[in-house]
């Protein structure tokens, strides 16, 4: 079980080697904050695969989005993607997980852990940010911010922004910058390649198993900045998808980058899930992002 505090990410310090971190599924994180009237930058709790029991010290409005879990608050069944009121002493209990890998718990006011380099996101590798730079454990107490929006209504429900993967997901890529090193039909729409996430898949990135990708010639590439969603091909030939806690730079060839609109669904994959890459155009990448934004703002 991994529970970390995440806000929208630690931006502005990648040139110092500081990773962005932040939510694996940014769309669900935003939806959770919307439901409790928080700014998009407010910190939520990212729950991975197995859910905790959280006890509320005070009356609190909260919402849970992302991976579909059976939930109970104060003994009563609780809906996902809804604004819920917990009374002092109530426990939010996560039960069985059905689809998706990561859920987001937002509370009105946001989780009030100290800002580190301008952000509340947790980077586990360097023990920066979030709750003492680490995942949460039993007994930890999370302070909640006092700035609460006035117009939040208990019982409000919104539809999920992102459909949770069921066993796996197709993910669209913008090819480049090193796709020229590979067979031009790789990841072309008519030649989808299906991979499986190995157990060595986590917030830093996903190690995949499937068809090996072999560059047409071996080249030493000089380290350069690596965006989230980069699909790298290390010497093994098995692709690596860089995710939230990735290092800021790297030198492996990159065949493509997952489009921003598909990062949330990619962030909902777990070891054992399949991932299928498909190349798309700039125009489609933008259209998909605009459509997703419309759903969130609706």
């Amino acid at each position, binding site marked *: 079980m991994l529970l970390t505090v995440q806000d929208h990410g630690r931006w502005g310090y*990648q040139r*110092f*080697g500081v990773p962005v971190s932040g939510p694996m599924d940014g769309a669900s994180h935003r939806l959770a904050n919307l439901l409790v009237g928080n700014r998009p930058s407010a910190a939520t709790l990212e729950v991975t695969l197995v859910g905790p029991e959280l006890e509320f010290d005070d009356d609190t409005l909260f919402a849970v989005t992302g991976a579909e879990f059976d939930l109970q608050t104060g003994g009563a069944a609780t809906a996902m993607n809804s604004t819920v009121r917990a009374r002092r002493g109530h426990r939010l209990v996560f039960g069985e997980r059905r689809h998706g890998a990561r859920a987001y718990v937002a509370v009105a006011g946001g989780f009030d852990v100290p800002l580190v380099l301008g952000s509340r996101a947790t980077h586990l590798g360097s*023990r920066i940010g979030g709750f003492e730079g680490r995942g949460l454990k039993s007994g930890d107490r999370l302070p909640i911010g006092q700035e609460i929006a006035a117009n939040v209504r208990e019982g409000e429900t919104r539809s999920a922004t992102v459909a949770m993967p069921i066993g796996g997901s197709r993910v669209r890529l913008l090819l480049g910058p090193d796709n020229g090193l590979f067979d031009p039909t790789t990841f072309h729409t008519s030649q989808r390649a299906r991979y499986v996430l190995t157990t060595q898949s986590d917030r830093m990135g996903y190690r995949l198993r499937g068809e090996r990708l072999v560059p047409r010639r071996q080249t030493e590439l000089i380290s350069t900045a690596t965006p989230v969603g980069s699909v790298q091909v290390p010497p093994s030939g098995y692709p690596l998808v860089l995710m939230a806690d990735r290092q*800021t730079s790297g030198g492996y060839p990159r065949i493509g980058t997952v489009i921003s609109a598909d990062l949330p669904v990619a962030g909902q994959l777990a070891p054992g899930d399949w991932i299928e890459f498909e190349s798309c155009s700039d125009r489609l990448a933008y259209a998909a992002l605009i459509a997703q934004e419309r759903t969130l703002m609706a």
Partner: protein
Amino acid sequence: MSWTLTRVGDSALVVAFEQRIDPTINARVVRVARAVQELHHDGVQDVVDSFCAVTVYFKPLHTDVESLARSLEEIAAGETVVREDGVESTPQRMVPVCYGGPHGPDLREVARFGGCSEADVVEHHVSRPYRVYMLGFLPGFAYMGSVHPRIAIPRRSTPRLRVPAGAVGIAGSQTGIYPVTAPGGWHLIGQTPLHTFTLDRADPFLLRSGDIVRFKPIGEEAFRRFVTEE
């Protein structure tokens, strides 16, 4: 000097120069990165310089990408009229290092690789200035170059699970200092008592791209004194 402007994914633009580890190219990269930061262009979230490129991250729905691309082209093109010898007169930053023994478990192997004595390895390491080409890998980790070819040992075939903070290492033509305890594959020749990254300081990062660094050997006693003084 030639350059290209490319999109990488839907949220990044990259100005790339000639793909070579070279101080003149890197000096240009550092100047371009600074100029891009100073644009404060709407929607830009991060400007990341590397050995030979500048990557500009932006929020796709909040950025006029055409305008950003044009500004980047102007900055990159403006650079080509600057004189070619880009090595700035930067003050040298001195980094004290306790070499060998428990602080440098791989010093002997580097000596074997170079066919010289451990003292020679240290001499090679301290007798030249290094350019900080970029920061990456870990917060505050500076990639510095270039190391004397005699001691330019490749990475270890098996990385260590735990490299202590302050460890000074070599990987090929690069030398670096571990800012925090982390796993790593560099050959470790010494340790510095300085913190290249700490949140306890107003400026957490000791080194920046474009800095010039020189190493200076210190003894065990001096190392301990440094550490206790903090």
